[in-house]
């Protein structure tokens, strides 16, 4: 019975994934999960509040010890004002720094001059709920639905992100 249960679960899993592969091309069937994490002040923050923003939202998982994450967010920082003007985008940088490096997050972002919304996910609750394996991992959320997901960062990936933002905002108009 136990084995049958696992078999069934595995089947359901495969089924679920394949059906997602089909639907994800149409975009946006998956909703943002509701998880209680913290903002940079240490206040409770429910992740559904991210979707309150009108227009596209970028969610980027990063950490102060992750070099490619910092390369990505520093690159976007130079483009961010333009992106905001053109597409109305907001960026949430979700730090997965744990207690060891959490105290560096706020000083780091201020020293870099980032103007993102910063969230702290120090025990990985939001990371888990979003299905993130490793950082950096970047999502775009539109009207509460996850419409874009990209793991890793290579220089130039920001252009693909920007193209997707333009596409989304063109659709909206």
């Amino acid at each position, binding site marked *: *019975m*136990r084995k049958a*249960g*696992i078999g*069934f*679960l*595995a*089947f*359901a*899993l495969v*089924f*679920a*994934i394949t*059906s*997602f592969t089909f*639907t994800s091309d149409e975009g946006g*069937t*998956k909703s943002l*999960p*509701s998880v*209680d994490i913290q903002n940079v*002040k*240490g*206040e*409770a923050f429910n992740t559904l509040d991210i979707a309150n923003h009108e227009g596209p939202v970028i969610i980027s998982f990063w950490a102060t*010890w992750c*070099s490619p994450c910092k390369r990505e967010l520093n690159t976007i920082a*130079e483009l961010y004002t333009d992106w905001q003007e053109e597409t109305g985008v907001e960026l949430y940088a979700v730090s997965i720094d*744990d*207690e*060891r*490096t959490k*105290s*560096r997050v*706020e*000083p*780091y*972002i*201020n*020293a*870099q*001059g980032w103007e993102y919304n910063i969230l702290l996910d*120090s*025990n*990985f609750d939001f990371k888990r*709920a979003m*299905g*993130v*394996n*490793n950082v950096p991992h970047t999502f775009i959320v539109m009207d509460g639905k996850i419409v874009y*997901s*990209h*793991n*890793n960062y*290579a*220089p*130039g*990936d920001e*252009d*693909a992100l920007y193209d997707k933002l333009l596409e989304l905002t063109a659709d909206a108009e």
Partner: protein
Amino acid sequence: MKKFLLTLAVACATTAMAQNDMGNITGNLESTFQYLRNDPLIDANQPPEKALINSYANIFYTKGKFSAGARVESYLPRIQGYPDRFDGTGIGFRYIGYKTDFIDLTIGNFYEQFGSGMIFRSYEQRALGYDNAMDGIRLKLNPYKGIRIKGFWGKQRLSFTDGRIINSAGLVRGFDGEMHVNQTFEKLKDFPIDIMIGAQFVSKYQEDDNDQLILPENVGAYGGRIGLRYKGFYLNGEYNIKENDPSSDNGYIYNNGHAALINFGYSRKGLGIVLSAKSTDNMSFRSDRTKDLQDALINFLPPTNKTHTYNLVATLYPYATQLLGEVGYQADIIYTVPKKSKIGGKYGMPININYSIINGSVQSGDGVSGQDSTQRLRPYSNTPFATSTSNYWHDFNVQIKRKFNKKFYAIGSYYNILINNDVIKVTDDAKGKINSHIGVLEMGYKINRKHSLRAEFQALFVNDVYDKATGQEVAQDKGNWATALIEYTISPNWFVSVMDQYNYGNPTEANRIHYIVGSVGYVKGATRIMGTYGRQRAGLFCVGGVCRFVPASNGLTVTLTQSF
């Protein structure tokens, strides 16, 4: 369990059929495959199975206030360096939850942390095979503005054998309350100082099965915390006491333990400063008093030093928290030389200076011992932040980043890391303190819109020590190293890299080996496939101050990750 699986499976299947109105599924898959060869030069052995594979699938289902999730994991057999009792395929994590704005209830497995985690942190660090998930019940309440209460009761995951979760012997229970004072009290809404206070309590129960000692079956740990913010300043402090907890770690003594952590920070645009101080003594806290290494830990003691990322700096001499006691201090300054200045250039120039030092805690000999010693030995007394002269670690490092134009940047770094190998055992080849100087130059060049090149050059130099056997000065540990790495990326899909770690300074000439590793990766959306081929040296592999020893290997590793 059976019913649970069935419910979950049905829920998943039906949801997949009609997702739009039937809830939401997220999750991920990860699989790591290794094919290993014999390489006598670096003591790498081929396992009898030749090939190894670890696989995981997480699936989380939510619909309105209801949620359920599970992780299937599989070790056929486990990849190198994983705990040797992980085997088989089965459910390694499962839960059902219910959540509203007021209440959040979980039954089954969950991860949780109280305050800074120094008396309770349950989490997964898969790269290390570390997973101390709780198995029981958790309740979170938001009874009033700014107030959060959490409680849990359960056992702790210790292992995964024959496809089943094995929980550790003890029972763990805890409560935590936190108040954001300015939110709770209307009058303080506009008070310039932002105040958070909290208190945490954790208790473990384990039967006294020792016929020589009278062991406390219930051990409590408790503490308080405070967070203050004023303009660009913040100050966080936490203090915890653990009651007497004789264990194999502390040699079955009855001393209380303590853990204190203070972080002070200031930041404004272009400048960030953090000062940290930590004091711990006798703070190994496990749900099974007989366990060691990373097993059955209830708490997490964060190391107060910077997490390094460059290969030689991060992996050769990493610091691991000393559970029996340490006092550590850290200062970190990040300053960005402003844009459009002569030195800062067009983009500004970030400079990071970081210093950390960790010593032993003072354990003075005026505790309770003598006649009663077989039963309730308290061999020493201890005062928080009383720092002994025994130095475990220091790390001074500077990093400067300069972006020269749209296409080219360079980062230069220098590190001086000293580690006391008699206390923090990182190698069998060194005596006493290893003092290393490391230089790293990283450069990145963007060839065009999609193609980029990145290179790292690293060199590590260690001190010499007197060798009695030969009467000569020889290099500590394995001597000096040099590393070169070249990475080529084609956005958004491909990356290729080659790294050579050359142990050119090894005191034994035959061991002056090139460890060459090549990697190719393909990324499409949330899918990532990476193949790595080559030699990996043995060493401590650490994530967040928790370390695992990984033996040397030579062969192919393929990793597939998928999020959905």
